[in-house]
């Protein structure tokens, strides 16, 4: 017993050393970078805004992961492809509207149509996926649905590649969203970034209210807590699960269009990396936790944008942006060492506290 205790404390010491040295490097690097004076306040505010805009998209995708995980305790690895399917399909609408000049004249209506198509496609894909691939496996061991989801991810990627081709398609430029606002020469923000951040914020707020305040949201939380008991209480568990998939997919579809408007490129592989990042964001914030997913997404976006410069540039590391994903994952490890269930802790139902 004594020996076991000793060994565990040794492990703890090791963890503290690891965590401490990461923090040490971060601090030394940050101080060195700031003291070098190479970057002005304007630069820092730029980095921050880039990070927040990117993070907002991560957060929207992360919500889909978190919702499904909260209810099914399952990593929907194919969620990135749900995101891709919407944005990719909506491209054809956006392109047609742009070519006919409609998007230029009625940007609001045009964009609404694009969003609607994207969300509808994503929802269709997600519902089919749930019915065909996930529902039969609801009581299978945990790894079986994970592998199914990985398979579905490949399948969807290459199906859409077969459908629409392997090339890159560029989203049209929307005139209203061009240009940027500048305040006092310090903060400069592009209109599209404003749209992304505001839209993401609104959607998340709406979702949070839905889950916390409505009857349907209550049913969702009940299913998340205990499926069997929820069924006994007269909740249609299958319907709630489908509903969860629908909401997650709709958010992913919206995120897809926002992403496409910001980066103006879609292709069949576009969902893979954002999917993994969003998954990371969900875990970072505490998987199954809605505000956690938002926070995780923003954190991740900001780490990726600010981190390489702030932490590494001062240390003289060449090409620091090559290491940005490594920084993101290191931060994840660091946070999980000190808070093993993410920043806000897990669970959809307990998030209320």
């Amino acid at each position, binding site marked *: 017993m004594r020996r076991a205790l000793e060994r565990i404390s040794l492990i703890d010491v090791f963890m503290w050393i690891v965590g401490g040295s990461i923090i040490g490097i971060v601090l030394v690097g940050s101080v060195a970078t700031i003291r070098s004076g190479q970057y002005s306040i304007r630069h820092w505010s730029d980095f921050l805004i880039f990070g927040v805009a990117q993070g907002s998209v991560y957060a929207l995708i992360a919500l889909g992961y978190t919702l499904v995980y909260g209810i099914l305790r399952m990593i929907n690895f194919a969620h990135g492809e749900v995101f891709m399917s919407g944005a990719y399909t909506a491209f054809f609408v956006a392109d047609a509207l742009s070519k006919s000049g409609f998007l230029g004249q009625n940007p609001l209506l045009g964009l609404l149509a694009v969003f609607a198509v994207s969300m509808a496609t994503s929802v269709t894909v997600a519902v089919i996926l749930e019915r065909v691939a996930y529902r039969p496996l609801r009581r299978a061991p945990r790894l079986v649905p994970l592998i199914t989801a990985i398979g579905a991810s490949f399948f969807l990627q290459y199906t859409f590649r077969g459908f629409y081709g392997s090339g890159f398609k560029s989203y049209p430029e929307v005139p209203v969203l061009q240009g940027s606002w500048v305040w006092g020469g310090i903060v400069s923000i592009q209109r599209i970034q404003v749209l992304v951040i505001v839209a993401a914020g609104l959607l998340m707020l709406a979702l949070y209210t839905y889950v916390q305040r409505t009857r349907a949201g209550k049913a969702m939380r009940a299913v998340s807590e205990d499926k069997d008991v929820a069924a006994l209480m007269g909740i249609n568990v299958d319907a709630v699960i489908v509903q969860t998939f629908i909401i997650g997919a709709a958010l992913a579809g919206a995120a897809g269009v926002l992403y496409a408007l910001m980066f103006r490129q879609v292709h069949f592989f576009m969902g893979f990396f954002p999917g993994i990042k969003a998954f990371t964001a969900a875990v970072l914030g505490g998987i199954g936790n809605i505000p956690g997913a938002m926070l995780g997404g923003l954190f991740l976006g900001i780490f*990726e944008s600010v981190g390489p410069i702030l932490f590494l540039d001062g240390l003289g590391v060449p090409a620091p942006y090559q290491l940005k994903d490594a920084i993101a994952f290191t931060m994840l490890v660091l946070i999980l060492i000190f808070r093993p269930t993410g920043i806000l802790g897990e669970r959809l139902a307990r998030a209320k506290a």
Partner: protein
Amino acid sequence: MSKRMYLTLSVIVLASIVLAACAPSAPTAAPFVCTDTIGCVDIAPDASVHIAYALTVSGATSFLGEDSKGGIEIAIDDKGGKLLGHTIELTGEDSGCSADGGQSAGTKLAADPTIVGVVGTNCSSASRTASPLVTGAGMVMISPSATNPDLSNPDHPDYHVGYLRTAHNDLFQGRIAAQFAFNELKVKSAATIHDGSPYAESLQNVFADVFKELGGTITAQEAVNVGDVDMKPVLTKISTGSPEIIYFPIFEPEGDFMAAQAKEVSGLEDTILMGADGLFAVSFPGAAGQAAVGMYLSGPYVAGAAYDEFIAKWKAKFGGPPPSGFHAHAYDATNILLAAIEKVAVQDADGTLHVGRQALRDAVYATKDFNGLTGKLTCDVYGDCATGEALGVFKLTEAEVGGAWPPPVFWQP
């Protein structure tokens, strides 16, 4: 009952095998004796001359493979599909754009003794592993688009006798890009970006070295990852050094993001952008949008009546323009190979062909002033058949963003 069935069955099978074995009785009187040091390929009268490709025909880089493959097919069509009275048979392997893909494809090709020569691979990483295998089997291998300098550097482990290329060595392209920037555009400071691919990394290094050698300064050598979309942070970092030109010899889609976002970063509004043949693709200007106007691309430049004729054939055969810039190199590589086979093949009275592998190799290395689409090709002893004369710098305009392709050449060394 069942025993009898078995017996009948085995008799049938045996008989059919024996019959089949006897049927194509070997032609008698073959006076040819192979004296070649690494062996000969014998092509029976009714058999075809077998050449193969190892290209990246699947995945994200498949546009490169499709491009080269089209060039090879047109070269064969131009021969009427026949060589010395034998049909030309083209088979191929997907080598991908990776070392493991190259090894699998190389092994499979090397195992087929009927193959006379190979055109491939597209990527240098695949060439590294495929070339020892293919050349080890005695075949000659000509790459249309592997540009890494190591492959024709005799002091490097990647150099193998029997491996040649019609693609221009990176040393040429990097140098030309740097000379263009320094001498023509008269810029004195530059930044480079690569994407972690061996190709881009090597090319931007050559560019930086030459640019410094000419007297310019390199403000930053940055890198991004394949799969990145948000390039603004790295561009912002570059903007602190205020370079006059940014050279990013990377691929799509990262290159599209880079070009489109560069103009949105404060401090880079007037910086000149320059890419390389990785972005020399019909989809690039549209994807980068208005930001691509005024941008420069270095890449293979082929022109002349013969080339126009080639493009006409391409359009007739495949519809639309070639997807990348190495089809002419593949066309030339195939023609060099076929010409060499024609030169060294020994034909028996009954039409049987014998191709000495060493003789074929020697003939390919001896290629001199070959009139190709990509200029006059002369292969040096290390396998470089291109001299860099078929390179140019292109400037993108509104027309290309609107869908015109390819752009007219802007400058040639």
